[in-house]
């Protein structure tokens, strides 16, 4: 059976950062379907209507911030188990703790180099794409 493309929602208000991460991810895995939204409200709408396998989330955003969005994702039955990876510029330990408490599956600081983004993309694809079991226990690779 053909591998169905995995869908990733990138919630990021900074267009440059969004471009960096999207670029690195597509170069690492060109089957990945990356959707970028710049506003948390938009992310909520998209997640109600569409299926996403993963969410990449910035914390500090205008309007509803990432932490609030993460809580909403976790409290919504349809999205409660979607893996959420927090990718943010903050390296403040309290932000790390708060993210995990709100239900983040992983936390990473935004890289400031191309190789940094490459490493992040590779780690993401290896760990999350290759290892995640979808809810219900169905195997990813048949």
């Amino acid at each position: 059976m053909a591998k169905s493309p995995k869908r990733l929602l990138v919630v990021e208000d900074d267009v440059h950062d969004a471009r960096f991460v999207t670029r690195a991810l597509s170069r690492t895995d060109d089957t990945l379907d990356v959707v970028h939204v710049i506003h948390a409200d938009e992310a909520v709408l998209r997640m109600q209507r569409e299926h996403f396998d993963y969410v990449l989330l910035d914390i500090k955003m205008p309007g509803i911030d990432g932490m609030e969005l993460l809580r909403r994702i976790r409290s919504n039955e349809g999205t409660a188990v979607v893996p959420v990876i927090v990718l943010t510029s903050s390296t403040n330990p309290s932000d790390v703790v708060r993210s995990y408490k709100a239900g983040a599956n992983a936390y990473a600081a935004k890289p400031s180099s191309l190789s940094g983004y490459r490493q992040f993309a590779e780690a993401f694809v290896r760990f999350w794409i290759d290892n995640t079991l979808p809810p219900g226990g169905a195997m990813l690779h048949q």
Partner: protein
Amino acid sequence: MTTFGEELVFKALYETFPDPVIILDAGRVIRSANPAALDKFGYPVDAFIGQPARLIYADDHEYARRLHNRAAGVDERIARTSTYSYIRRDGSTFSGHLRTTPLIDADGKELALIGIIRDVSDLARAVQEKQQASDMLDAALDAMPEGFAIFDAQERLLVYNRAYVTICGPAGPLIRPGITAEEILQIAQENSHYPDALPDSPDWPAWMAHRMQDFRQPDNRAKIYRYADDRWLRVENIKTKDGNTVVLRVDVTELKRAELALERQRQELQHKNEALDQFTATVSHDLKAPLRHISMFSEMIEEELAAGNQEEVAASARHLRESARRMTRVIDSLLDYAQIAYQITAWSEVDLDDIVADTLGVLGSHAREADVTFEIAPLPKVHGDPELLRRLVQNLVGNAIKYRHPHRRPIVRVSGRAAGQQVELVVEDNGIGIDPRFALRIFEVFQRLHQDESIYGGTGIGLALAKRIVESHNGSIRLDTGFTEGARFVVTLPKRMRKTR
């Protein structure tokens, strides 16, 4: 039986009577005196008999008093009304209680007056000492700044001092011995003496019950209550062994005010610390982002150059420059913000009308471009720094123009009014409005609600700056979330600046 002569008996009685007995004739001359009298006054018989009665009185005043009392017929049975100062031959004096009996002849004419003088010096001294002690105690009690009173077992007032009367407020004029503790409390309560138990508050019965409970069964712990005129009193009730209740009222207003001021300062400090934490977090985020982008784009240029990708190089170079410019703007905003730092020195009377007129002048071309209609109402005067207030109004009006609705002709209204000691300035627009959820966050540094800087440019410092200016004037600014046509900001400033900061 004639051997038992009554005369002899009377003579013996007269001779041996322990108190001085003196008989005066109608001319107030001493005609007879018993041995006790001679002994008491220290005269031999011939130096005493035949002398006028004035001889035994200490001075003319005392004698005049005696004559007056006799004419007035005072009750001589009571020591208080018939005691005189008498003098002995040696000049020493003593207090004597005088009781007299006139001898009247058949025609009703007074022949003589028999007087008995009992030495009451010891008694008088005791009474006087007691009175002195009591006066001293009263004076001390009245001089006490603390309110002091004693109630008996039936809760009736026995003793109280002047401070207690003052503390009872509206009940003060009715304070007298016999009034009950509950009556005093009720009168004061009905006349709004207790801010926590005002007559129109539903809580007063519970409050009164609590006060009476503390009077009837005091737990020996002082309590602090709020009284009228913003006073605070420490109330202490003490039950004594004999069933009385001693009540103490100490005015602790100054102490309480200091305590409240301290608590306010603590909260203010906590608030400032939190604001500082938030500030550093945001600043580091907003400075790190362009730095990271600069680093990224320079690396990408390198990569694209190696790949011979000329077009991409130009785009990356442009992004790099933009990032550097953005960083400059952030730093400039920060400096702007930091410079306000409560450095207000130029206090003066500021006419907000002038400030708004200036602002419209400055924003003129911008406003014309956006085709803005201004509706400016007359504005009050306020005490403040004209330069800072100008920046405040510029920020608010500038925002109103900036966040205009794409499909509506922009209208900006500025109005104001003086309300008591405060001045209110309202800036409202019919623009895109602000989500009420972010009513507080918009005043934080670098909080932007709109991602796209190309439409709504700026670093997100404007409202933080506005807030800081308002706070440096001891005022407040808020978003009126009830206003839905657009955004409405309400600034409240004190009319006069408090001197203490």
